[in-house]
């Protein structure tokens, strides 16, 4: 009986997600250009992920993006949310709506907007001019040194609102008596934050980190629309390499292997962060 209710969902899920995943693992053991006969290469494609300098660099870039997408928004979000949580501010609903807005806009639109801001005659350079730092101006996405941080900065913009709202929700659930007790003990804002706020939102922090780290590892649209991995290969990331290798370079086996590695990495990170977050509760 239960199986009948489950069957339609399971069929679609198995055909379009589970089976392709199995096939991805299978393809990853072959050297294949997508057209001619594939030849078995065993774990060679996986070895390449570690050995190939370009691929290693792509995974390295993903690490940099984790700093921008996950670490920075979590730190900023913690500060912002704890400030907002201390005082009753008017207009909080409006603020919440505005800072969450980036989450609902298509990444392609976000990328188009930021390309404009980073352009040589764009908003960022005008802003620098206005504060007398015009000499720092450049084509941010075309510069070897700044292209990757520029993309990372878009991630910070995109994720900070989400993290802040998530942490605010968590802090709203803290028992006010805990703060009163801390104050009676003579705790200042910083001690209060470290002793009461931070331990209480450990669960929210772990959710925020899981979400944002995964988002960082899956940055495809943003890279595709802004830089296509360039200049040179300074902004190539694993998800872009999957697309690039499978559909531009004809290295399908290698692309599948990168996709599998990315999946394993995402599972592992979610698992570890969730475990660390859970341990705090018990």
């Amino acid at each position, binding site marked *: *009986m*239960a199986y009948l209710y489950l069957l*339609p*969902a399971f069929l*679609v*899920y198995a055909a*379009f*997600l*589970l089976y*392709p*995943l199995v*096939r*991805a693992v*299978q393809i990853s053991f072959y050297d294949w250009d*997508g057209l001619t006969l594939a030849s078995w290469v065993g774990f060679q494609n996986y070895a390449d992920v570690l050995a190939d300098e370009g691929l290693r660099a792509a995974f390295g870039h993903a690490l940099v993006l984790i700093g921008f997408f996950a670490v920075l928004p979590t730190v900023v979000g913690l500060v912002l949310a704890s*400030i*907002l949580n*201390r*005082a009753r*501010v008017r207009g909080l609903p409006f603020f919440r*709506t*505005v*800072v*969450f*807005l*980036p*989450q*609902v*806009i*298509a*990444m*392609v*639109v976000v990328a*188009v*907007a930021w390309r*404009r801001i980073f352009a040589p005659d764009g908003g960022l350079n005008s802003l620098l001019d206005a504060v007398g730092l015009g000499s720092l101006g450049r084509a941010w996405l075309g510069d070897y040194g700044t292209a990757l941080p520029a993309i990372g900065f878009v991630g910070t*913009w995109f994720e*900070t*609102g989400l993290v802040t709202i998530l942490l605010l*929700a968590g802090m709203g659930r803290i028992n*006010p008596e805990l703060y009163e007790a801390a104050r009676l003990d003579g705790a200042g804002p910083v001690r209060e934050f470290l002793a009461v706020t931070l331990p209480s939102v450990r669960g929210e922090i772990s959710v925020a980190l899981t*979400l944002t780290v*995964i988002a960082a*590892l899956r940055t*495809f*649209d943003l890279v*595709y*629309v802004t830089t296509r991995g360039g200049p040179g290969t300074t902004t190539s990331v*694993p*998800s872009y390499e*999957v*697309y690039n290798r*499978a*559909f531009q370079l004809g290295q*399908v086996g290698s692309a*599948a292997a990168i*996709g599998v590695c*990315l*999946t394993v990495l995402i599972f592992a990170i*979610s698992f570890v962060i969730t475990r660390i977050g859970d341990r705090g509760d018990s």
Partner: protein
Amino acid sequence: MRVGRGERTANYVILIAFALFALWPIVTVLVSALGADDTGAQGSSFAGLHLGNFAQAWDIGRFGTYLRMSALVSTFVVACTVVLSVLAGYAFGCMRFRGQTVLFYLFLLGIMMPSEAVVVPLFFDLRAIGLTDTFWAVAMPQVAQSVAFGTFWMRAYFRSSSRVLVEAARIDGASTRRILWQVLVPLARPAIVTLVVLVFMWTWNEFLIPLVMVTDESLRTAPLGLAFFQGQYTSGFTLLAAGAVIVATPVVVLYLFLQRHFIAGMLEGAIRE
């Protein structure tokens, strides 16, 4: 909590600065889309707002076609996801059967699985059976991804919904099917609305799957159309900005109306991303 005057002022300064930062790119696009064409072409203006840019982008960029495709795909994916997820969530949430745990973990796997992992075999296998460059190649993989999340979402809801209620209905002689459609589903409306909102947004904004699955221009979704419009139309930013506004508007309008559902859904069901 009472805080000093200085701290309150500082709070507002921080709030406003942060809100401005969040709005910066959005305002940039809006201002450009409403401004005079930066390629020098003359357009009519209404109260200084060049609304003609939208009409021009609509024609040149063929956004009418893309929006239609996006609307079709999103409607189809949302409808399929809701029906399939309600059924599967009901089985997981209210019934006991063999292999329940294993099957549930299998669905959970799908929530975390990135499209990057499956898009390569999907393309080559669908091409082999002649399905690439069709509506189905864009829609079905997204139904599968959303069903994984939807099943998880509805299961959580049905589990928390009152067991007493289900028992009472059963004693009254209602069949399993009637309990679902006449007792549980009407009560589950808030959960279903949130699911609809999230799946609609994810489908509307999806980029990789349509990019890989279709080359036919008439099958492009709105974000895909925008990305290609950017490649072709590089002489000015005005029309590109107008196109960007057209692509973003449906979800943003929905968000402004249903933000409670958006925010609650994103925070609770957050594991999918």
